[in-house]
């Protein structure tokens, strides 16, 4: 993507205002500078020199949840991902990034051991502050002045699954773990991998896979993303997998949508192999279910999955088989943790989180399933705050609990059309 691409995309906006009807941040704030149309007009002015990189402009750009609801509903077909990441990159170019952040994006993310140590350190520090409930430990994020941080598990998913699948044979898929699952929900990642193995697949979990680059996108460091993408491409395609299965909606969206459109066609091959976990099961899995009681489960649509990848029927049909599925009100409304809004606009994030928790509780479910560790974090947080005992699970965990066996459906030649 270059500046001309960005300008062309900004011009594509018909200024109709439809995004005001769907943007979760606008609905909460009623602030035109915090909706796609307003950001697009401000960005145009910024590129023309009509407005400078003020605090207000940063607020406008950073208040985006990256939920892609506006993109999915845009009558003019504006590629909003290109717009928001393009503006952030333009703004980042004109203003030096804090050294620590730059170090994290350009160095730490590439250095798995160092990253592990840093996360361990955070984990240890977090033990020193009071716990809130069973799952979460709160550490005031003094750097960014926000609410809290998730508990970091002692052993990462990648270390737990080291060497897995490397000696076995058969059709190979690679599992992409993603940072949040790696450090916070390693057990969910393991469950996903076990489900895939029970279908008879050889599942490789390369230990040298890196962060997908979502935080670097959000902070406008496209160079860091490009370097991460190149390394990931090499690592993930090394075993010549038939698919790259991803358990995190954000990582899947970044790998299959944002790599090719922001970094170029060199990533089209990688992107075409990416499948979200439930999408892959719908396409290829034939699962045998056990006979124990089915728990009442509701489903929360991760924004990136529904709006960016058009995946919403697959997880539901899976849950209808795996559990006693109930739909909740506004299941596809953002939980409030997208992008970096949780850090920069905790008030908006809190309103959305609280609403989401109430929808979950009103559904009467015993557990809520989703397919994004970020959503899991936010759901746990707000259910806890509401005093609810409803469990939050990755959809892979729900499947794993009742699955007794299964096999692979033959690969269909047709492309799913989601690329």
């Amino acid at each position, binding site marked *: 993507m270059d500046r001309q691409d960005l300008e062309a995309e900004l011009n*594509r906006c*018909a*200024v*109709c*205002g*439809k995004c*005001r*009807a769907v943007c979760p941040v606008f609905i909460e704030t*009623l602030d*035109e*500078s915090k909706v796609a149309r*307003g950001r697009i*007009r*401000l960005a145009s*002015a910024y590129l023309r020199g*009509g*407005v400078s990189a*003020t605090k*207000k*402009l940063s607020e*406008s750009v950073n208040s985006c949840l990256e939920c892609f609801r506006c993109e999915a509903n*845009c*009558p*003019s*077909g504006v590629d909003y991902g290109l717009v928001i990441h393009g503006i952030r990159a333009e703004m980042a170019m004109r203003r030096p990034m804090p050294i620590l952040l730059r170090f994290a994006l350009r160095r730490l993310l590439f250095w798995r051991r160092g990253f592990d140590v840093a996360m361990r350190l955070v984990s240890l520090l977090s033990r020193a502050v009071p716990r809130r409930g069973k799952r979460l430990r709160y550490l005031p994020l003094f750097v960014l002045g926000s609410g809290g941080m998730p508990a970091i598990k002692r052993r990462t998913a990648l270390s737990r699954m080291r060497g897995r699948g490397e000696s076995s044979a058969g059709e190979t898929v690679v599992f992409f773990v993603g940072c949040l699952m790696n450090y916070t929900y390693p057990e969910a990642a393991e469950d996903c991998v076990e489900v895939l193995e029970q279908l008879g697949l050889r599942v490789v979990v390369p230990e040298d896979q890196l962060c997908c680059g979502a935080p670097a996108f959000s902070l406008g460091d496209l160079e860091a993303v490009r370097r991460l993408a190149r390394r990931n491409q090499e690592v993930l395609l090394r075993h010549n997998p038939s698919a790259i299965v991803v358990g995190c909606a954000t990582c899947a969206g970044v790998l299959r949508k944002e790599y090719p459109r922001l970094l170029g066609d060199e990533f089209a091959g990688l992107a075409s192999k990416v499948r979200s976990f439930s999408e892959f099961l719908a396409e290829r899995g034939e699962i045998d279910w056990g006979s124990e009681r089915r728990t009442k489960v509701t489903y929360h649509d991760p924004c990136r999955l529904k709006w960016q990848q058009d995946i919403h029927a697959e997880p539901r049909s899976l849950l209808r088989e795996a559990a006693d599925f109930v739909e909740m009100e506004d299941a596809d409304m953002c939980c409030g943790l997208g992008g970096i809004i949780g850090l920069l606009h905790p008030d908006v994030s809190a309103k959305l989180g609280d609403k989401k928790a109430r929808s979950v509780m009103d559904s009467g479910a015993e557990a809520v399933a989703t397919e994004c560790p970020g959503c899991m974090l936010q759901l746990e947080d707000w259910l806890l705050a509401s005093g609810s005992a409803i469990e939050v699970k990755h959809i892979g965990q729900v499947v794993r609990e009742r699955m007794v066996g299964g096999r692979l459906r033959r690969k269909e030649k047709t492309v799913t059309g989601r690329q």
Partner: protein
Amino acid sequence: MRKQAIDKLRSVFPPQRFSTSPEDLITCSYDASRQEFRADAVAWPQTTDEVSEVMRLASLEGFAVYPRGAGSGMSGGALPVRGGLVLDFCKMNRLIESRPEDRLAVCEPGITLGELQKWLKPDGVFFPPDPASHDFSTLGGAVAECAGGLRAVKYGVTRDYIVSIEAVLPSGEIIETGRTVLKSVAGYDITRLLVGSEGTLAIFTKIAVRVLPIPEKVIALLGYFAGDDTAVKCAQSILASRILPRAMEFMDRGSLECVSRYRDFGIPGEAGSALLLEFDGAASAVADEAERCEDVMSKHGASNVRRAESDEEREELWTLRRSISPALFRHAPIKLNEDVCVPISRLSEALAGFRSISERLSVDIINFGHAGDGNIHVNVMVDEHDPDELRRGHEAVRQVYEAAVRLGGSISGEHGIGNVKTGFLSLELSPVELELMRSLKKVFDPKGILNPGKIFVEEGS
């Protein structure tokens, strides 16, 4: 605006509801007409008293004031063309009361039509006007522009549903037009005068609307025809057969071709036009109407007729209609989107006229829209980088207006005049009528401070 005026305004609003920052001025500088005008200040009022105080100051200090809703207007009606103060009503959006037993609801102007429907639904009633922007446009904006919509065939337009308006005059005085009852003939009908006045006479602060019971059942029908004429004749026969659809949308060959390139809707290759109809009412009556309509359609040679009863099936049919805009957008970089309205009986002549304009000036013209009320969306497709084509495009627009007026129609069915059609108003209105309107404007707004530069060509220019 003078600094003194801005300082005085600051004392009317809390700091978070008044701004002169460039970012806030940019985000209220545009609307769907894709023009841009920068104001000097913007405020987000929440009470009638605040609005009244603003207008008192504006009369005193002589600055211009522009009421704004969602900024979704198509004709520039809310744009601060002369600088001054924008009053953005999106935060004055409360629902004051629903009185289903009186068939009335009262709300503030900043509420979106979508929110209004959501709020009315538990009472089993709805507000019929449904412009394409209904899920984000505001009630205040809909009243100011007298918005129409798809359901106008059966239900009429916004003007038919406004019972009473609380409004602030340019002097700052507060008036309440009409009474919140369904019948009232005490004095002139100021309410009707304010509806469609495009924010030039008074600023609405409270609106009482008439609501109707939500129909029990809705059925949609879609059928394809050989050409424009057959579809229009079919539409006229349907209306003449004592059948009243709530929506009757027409799509010409150009629209269908564009949509087919955009996505596969299974449109038959030979289709030269299409009609999409919707019926609502009691279940038995609707089924009967739809059946009779199917008969009429088949008599007119309709092919591939599809009937949709569930919400999902209907949604599928409407997706076709809704895809026209994005599809056209891919077809040509800009479209000049006009909304002329002609008598239904003269639709065929109008469409033939538009076709010959298109051929004469060699610009693409694609037509679709509301066949049931004669309101056709005429899209002149041009490339803005081609100055000659752009010029021919604008000439085509003028000729489309002239053709519509000649057939007894109007240059704007539902978008309003705003600042984009001021030069064409005299095509439709006589000098006497224009002068009467100007005089009315002067009675309400002698100093010309409320939404200047709209509807009329400036005197002396």
